[in-house]
C-alpha cells in the first residue's frame, strides 16, 4: 500500500489531480472515523475530514516521503478537529455538548419533562452510548483515546501524529482511561 501511495503522491505533485482520488479512497474511512469519534457529529465529521484531505492536497509538497503518509494525514485531521472543538462554532448541532455542562447536549435544552439526562444516557443504544462517553472526555484525552483504541495506533505513532513526547502521550492515555472509568461508573 505504501508503494502505491508514494506513486500517487508523485503523480499528484506532477500535476495529475486525479491521482489524488486514489489516496482519498484509501484513507477516507480511517480519516472520517477519527473525525467522527472526535467530534461526535456526522455532518461536522464529514466536513472536517474533507477539509483535511483538501489541506493534504494543497500541502502535499511539504510531506516528507521518507515518513509514513497516514501519520502525516492523521495529524492534519486531528489538528483540524482540535481547532473545531476549541472554538465551537456558532452553528449548533443538537447532539453537540453544551459548554460547561459536562455532558449535557442541546437535546437536554429542548423542553422535555419525561426524562433526566442520566436516564437518557441509560436508554441510549449501546453504540450511541460509546460515542456519548467519548464526547464527554476532555479534548486532550479524547484525542489519544480515539487514536489508541479506535484507530489502533501505537504509542509511538500517536506521539508523531500529535507531535508530543512519548511520555506525554502515555500520561494522557493513563488519565484518559481514568476519566473514562469514572464516567462509566457514575451511573
Amino acid at each position, binding site marked *: 500500500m505504501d508503494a502505491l501511495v508514494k506513486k500517487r503522491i508523485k503523480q499528484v505533485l506532477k*500535476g495529475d*489531480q*486525479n491521482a*489524488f*482520488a486514489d489516496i*482519498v*479512497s484509501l484513507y*477516507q*474511512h480511517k*480519516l*472520517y*472515523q477519527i473525525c*467522527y*469519534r472526535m467530534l461526535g457529529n*456526522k455532518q461536522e465529521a*464529514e466536513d472536517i*475530514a*474533507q*477539509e483535511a*484531505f*483538501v489541506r493534504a*492536497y*494543497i500541502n502535499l509538497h511539504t510531506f516528507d516521503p521518507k515518513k509514513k503518509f497516514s501519520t502525516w494525514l492523521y495529524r492534519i485531521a486531528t489538528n483540524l478537529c482540535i481547532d473545531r472543538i476549541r472554538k465551537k462554532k456558532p452553528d449548533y448541532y443538537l447532539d453537540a455538548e453544551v459548554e460547561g455542562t459536562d455532558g449535557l447536549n442541546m437535546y437536554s435544552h429542548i423542553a422535555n419533562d419525561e426524562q433526566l439526562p442520566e436516564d437518557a444516557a441509560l436508554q441510549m443504544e*449501546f*453504540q450511541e452510548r*460509546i*460515542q456519548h*462517553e*467519548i464526547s464527554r472526555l476532555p479534548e486532550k484525552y479524547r484525542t489519544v*483515546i480515539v487514536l489508541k*483504541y*479506535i484507530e489502533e495506533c501505537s*504509542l509511538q505513532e500517536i506521539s508523531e501524529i500529535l507531535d508530543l513526547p512519548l511520555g506525554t502521550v*502515555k500520561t494522557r*492515555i*493513563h488519565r484518559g*482511561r*481514568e476519566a*473514562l*472509568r469514572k464516567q*462509566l*461508573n457514575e451511573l
Partner: protein
Amino acid sequence: MSTCPQHIFEYMHEYLDGDISREHEQELKQHLKTCTACQEHMHQLSDAVAFIKSAAQVTAPPHFEESVMKRLPRPKSRVGIQKWLRRHPFLVAAAMFILFMSATLFGSFHDDKFSVTKQPNLIVEGQTVIVPKGEVVKGDVVVKNGDIVVEGEVDGNVIVINGEYMASSAVVTGQIEEIDQMFEWVWYEVKRMSKDLLAPLDKEKN
C-alpha cells in the same frame, strides 16, 4: 483505595499499555491478590478499554471521495505558469537578461570615481570639465561624478552623471542630460543599450 501506593496505579496503566516490566507485573499481581479495592479499580479500567474498543467501525458516506475531489482547488496555477514559461522562452531569456544587466548597472552606479570621455580639446580642472571658448568638441561628452562647464561648442550630446551642467552661451547640438538618480541612470543605460542594439538594424533598413 487511597491507602494504596500511587505506583500501583501507574503499574496498572503500564500493564494496559503493554509495556510493563516483569518486576512491576509481579508486584502488581501480588498487590491485586491482597487488595480488593485495587482489583476493582483494575477491572474498571479494563472494562473502560473494552468498552471503547467495542465501538463499531464507522465508514465515510458514499459520496465522500467525489465531494473531496470537487473541493480541491483547480490545479492550473502552478502548471499554468510552467506552461507559459515553456511557451515563451524568448521572453524568459529577455527578462533574465534585463535582471542581470540591471544588477550590474546598479553596481556600477555606486562607482563614484570621476571620469570623462576623452576628447582632445577638453580641459580638466580637478572635478570640473571645461569646454573652452572657441573650441568645438566633436562627439558626445559624458562626465561622471563631476561638473561640466561649456563655454565653447559641443557637436554631440552632453551627459552629466552625478554632477552639474553649467553653461552660459554654449552651443550643444545634441541633448543635454543630467543624471543623478539611480533610476534615471538605469533608464539612461537601458536607452543607450537599446540604441546600440538597434543601430545595426537601422543601418540594414537604410
